[in-house]
């Protein structure tokens, strides 16, 4: 397995964000799709389960960092690592809670059981009026205070982009580690036939939960980097926006579910298509998402990477 393409892409984009800070936001938009696809892939691609309440994990990450910076300005620059840690922990905890109950269900039943999670958590925050309630958290002045003006602006511009790219990079490493380990085989067996996996001595719930929590933690990190750090604000309407899971699924299927490079290539193509549609057919991006998912699932179920690997076997080691 040659990890040059996934690692090279992320490192190159990181370097570009540093050298050309004026393009940092553009790179962040591309990287967001790549990293989201990558995180979704660790759960959906490896287990074959779909979670429609998934966006709540992005939101948990965003709120973790947002709340820390907003309410604990006195932490100074420490608010950043501590806030990220809180965001990831919130996402992982929510995943363990949802997973421990719902992952005992099979495929479609799991998807249905999780539909309400995203809206449920959102209405908890808005309804109970905690963490800024429906008005959200505007972080710019807290960030200026905590980090200093120049540092805050640098973190919001280049810092958030690098963190989004780092999330993708961590996801690549996580994917390698899982696939090379015993857990990778267990998940492959579960995906192909869960009942058979059970009688092989595999505890399916354990491995599904592991993949779910890893995926959720990465999404938490992504949500913190993109919304709180990058936009300097956390609005419930934005961070619980249910379409992000459709984006994540589209990127993953487009690139190739269960592959390491799939979401990277999928993210690049997906961003490109949405960008062009935004220019020529403004307002129709959401329609394009639906169309892409439909066409890919019907005509190219293994995605771009999966199909390329099948057509040109020598590419296999280059496109893990």
């Amino acid at each position, binding site marked *: 397995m040659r990890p040059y393409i996934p690692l090279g892409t992320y490192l190159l984009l990181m370097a570009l964000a540093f050298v050309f800070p004026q393009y940092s936001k553009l790179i962040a938009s591309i990287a967001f799709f790549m990293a989201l696809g990558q995180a979704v892939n660790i759960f959906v691609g490896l287990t074959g389960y779909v979670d429609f309440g998934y966006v709540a994990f992005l939101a948990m990450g965003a709120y973790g960092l947002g709340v820390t910076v907003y309410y604990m300005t006195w932490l100074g620059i420490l608010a950043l690592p501590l806030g990220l840690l809180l965001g990831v922990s919130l996402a992982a905890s929510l995943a363990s809670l949802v997973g421990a109950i719902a992952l005992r269900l099979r495929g479609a039943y799991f998807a249905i059981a999780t539909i309400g999670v995203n809206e449920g958590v959102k209405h908890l925050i808005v309804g109970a009026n905690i963490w800024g309630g429906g008005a959200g958290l505007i972080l710019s002045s807290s960030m200026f205070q905590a980090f200093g003006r120049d540092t805050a602006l640098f973190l919001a511009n280049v810092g958030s982009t690098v963190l989004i790219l780092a999330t993708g990079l961590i996801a690549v490493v996580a994917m390698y580690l899982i696939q090379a380990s015993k857990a990778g*085989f267990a998940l492959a067996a579960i995906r192909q036939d869960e009942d058979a*996996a059970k009688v*092989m*001595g*595999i505890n399916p719930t354990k491995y599904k939960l592991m993949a779910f929590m890893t995926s959720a933690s990465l999404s938490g990190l992504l949500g913190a980097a993109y919304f709180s750090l990058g936009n300097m604000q956390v609005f419930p309407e934005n961070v619980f926006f249910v379409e992000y899971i459709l984006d994540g699924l589209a990127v993953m299927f487009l690139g190739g579910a269960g592959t390491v490079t799939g979401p990277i290539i999928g993210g690049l193509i997906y961003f490109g298509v949405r960008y062009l549609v935004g220019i020529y057919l403004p307002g129709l991006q959401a329609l394009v998402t639906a169309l892409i998912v439909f066409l890919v699932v019907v005509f190219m179920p293994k995605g771009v990477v999966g199909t390329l690997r099948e057509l040109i076997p020598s590419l296999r080691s280059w496109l893990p």
Partner: protein
Amino acid sequence: MALRVSNLASGYGRLQVLFGVSFEAPSGSVVSILGPNGAGKTTTLLTVMGVVKPWDGVVELEGVDVTWLPPHRKVELGISLVPEGRRLFPEMTVEENLLMGAYTKRARDKIHDSLELVYTLFPRLKERRKQKAGTMSGGEQQMLAVARALMARPKVLLIDEPSAGLAPKVVADLFQTISQLKKEMSVLLVEQNVAAALEISDYSYVLENGRIILKGPASELVENEHVKKAYLGV
């Protein structure tokens, strides 16, 4: 006694399928559970395995109560199931399927030894070891399903309907191999193909409507009037 099951009851939702089933499978023998469609044969194996939760009764493995353990713990302790319909991992090669069979710690330590063993039992699998499991013939797939279960190094091997959908000649070969397995373990066979099953069984139980209605050495059951009339068509 390798496997002793007493008064086992279970079902799905509110539908009870087994009404107090008891049987024994000593090591060094092939024991079969025979019966018509819907009698509860597969449910019996799934309940023993823990895939279907027991409602009542006791499952003992070598004298230890394992009734309430989940399937993955039972595999570790030495019960292995060849599921109905084979249930191979279709996208994995023959060898990968076999390696999956040796998933538990205890089995992994003996993995090379086990591979050699199953390749000796089923030389055809060795020839096909790089082939995707889903692309093989029915007979070969059934061999692989049995071999995969053997990779877990079971003390008790449960086999569910191995003859389903196979040509008589293939069934005969497969059953020949199954009857050899009893040297190392206890084999519990569930079958609709009563004639073939009785031929290799030491002891048999007849299950109808979730209850054992007949039992005895296979050689005696062959002569039983009910068995003859209902199952052997003579």
